[in-house]
């Protein structure tokens, strides 16, 4: 069965609304309405695996600030962002923490570590 879905390209301010023709759920047959190669590549990647870097904050038990900003060191599938937030809301950290330090390794088995994006001093 062939069906068509639309994906907005974010490669440039043009923001083409690309139309992807798919066969058997995941075989891309054709990409229409993009105006460049970059856009076509982005749209196919976004269709196959829409991934995002998740950024958040975790509560600190003590230290120089109430919250420590964190991010996943790899993009994760966008459908798992809220699951990760649930997990992150239960995490507590204490000083000292340096920038880039792993806070949660392999979060929810998604293949990405949650790392600190700032330092936490005593």
């Amino acid at each position, binding site marked *: 069965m062939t069906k068509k879905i639309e994906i907005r390209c974010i490669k440039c301010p043009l923001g083409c609304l690309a139309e992807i023709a798919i066969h058997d759920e995941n075989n891309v047959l054709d990409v229409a309405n993009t105006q460049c190669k970059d856009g076509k590549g982005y749209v196919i990647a976004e269709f196959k695996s829409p991934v995002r870097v998740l950024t958040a904050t975790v509560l600190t038990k003590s230290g120089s600030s109430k919250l420590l*900003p964190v*991010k996943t060191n790899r993009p994760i599938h966008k459908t798992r962002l809220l699951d990760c937030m649930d997990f992150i809301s239960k995490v507590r950290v204490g000083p000292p923490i340096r920038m880039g330090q792993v806070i949660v390794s392999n979060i929810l088995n998604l293949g990405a570590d949650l790392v600190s994006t700032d330092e936490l001093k005593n």
Partner: protein
Amino acid sequence: MISKDIDVAVIGSGPAGLAAAINAKEAGAENVTILERAEQPGGLLHQCVHNGYGLTYFNEDLTGPEYARRFIEKAMDLRVDIELESMVIDLSPDKELVCSSKYGLKKLQPRAIVLAMGCRERTRQQILIPGFNPSGIMTAGTAQRYVTCEGYIPGKEVVILGSGDVGMIMARRLTLEGVKVKAVVEILPYIGGLIRNEVQCLGDFNIPVYLSHTVTNIHGQQRIEGVSVSKVNKNFEPIEGTEFRIDCDLLLTSVGLIPENELSLKAGVKIDPVTGGPIVNENMESNVSGIFAGGNVVHVNDLVDNVSLESQISGTRAAEYALGKTLPSVRRINLKAGENIRYVVPQTIDVGKDVTIYMRVREPREKVRLGIGSIYSENLRVVKPSEMLKAKITLEQLREIKGEVSEIEVSCVKRG
């Protein structure tokens, strides 16, 4: 006593101030001091915990705190003196600064000054929404500070007025934190911020967007209980009979940013009525000799990377000024905003120095030609007010400007 041993004083330690101070040092200024009113350097970047910073400057995708840290560390390595909890409260045309600090009032008279105070959000009071004034109405940036720095979630159900980048970023942040984002309401027929935020902040979470709509009433007396939303016509006037209500306990406004220039005005710096920031030349110097400016205090940028790049120029030129090494001007050319150009920065350039100019268009258009007099032409697939345009003009191109010309026009019109 007035301290006079500072070469370059930078007001503000956000991305603009840090970049300016670093470059001032690198250009040979010995005593470079940043005056910062907050308890830590970095400015707004600390509350911007999301990624998307540094893509052009570092060719890396960084979060706000990571981007800030790189500049803070470099400034510290270069021994830039960063004075925290030091708020500049007065500035005179002869560059005398009054600064309120932990140790009391201080007076400084640096050889050169870089204004790097950034910008402020336009508030509800400035856009005149009718209705009561209950609690639960704040700017998107205030909510951002609550959520990402203070650990406080300011509501359970939110409506966001305006689709600027901060508003969209907060729509995503609040959704991730478990808040229901009921609507983003935008008076223009298109989204105000960057396309990637439209897709990744609104689209990813199916947040309802009402374009050509605005908030026409606020309900609730103690705490906000809801807003009325109406469709608007071409003149942005609410259309009668289109009003509907959305219940909420929080209204965020993301309705524009205004350069913060109270100090600049005290020093006699001339302000461009369109940008809201100082009128500057190719050195990022204002009309007041020795007072330079960089970043959002000059004009509101959409990318921090551009703030850093532009402020580096102010830092370098301020250092040269302080050291008496400023190159003499060859011939001044004014840049005039022509068709579909809202503003141009810098407003004046010199034919003796290559320069990068930044422009914003008035309205979105496709297949256009960006033209700067007869010396520069570039075809662009699309332009939008939310995406700043940038053009590098070389010395060779500047040499083409004929001797009698004192002004050239910048325009962005349809090709054909």
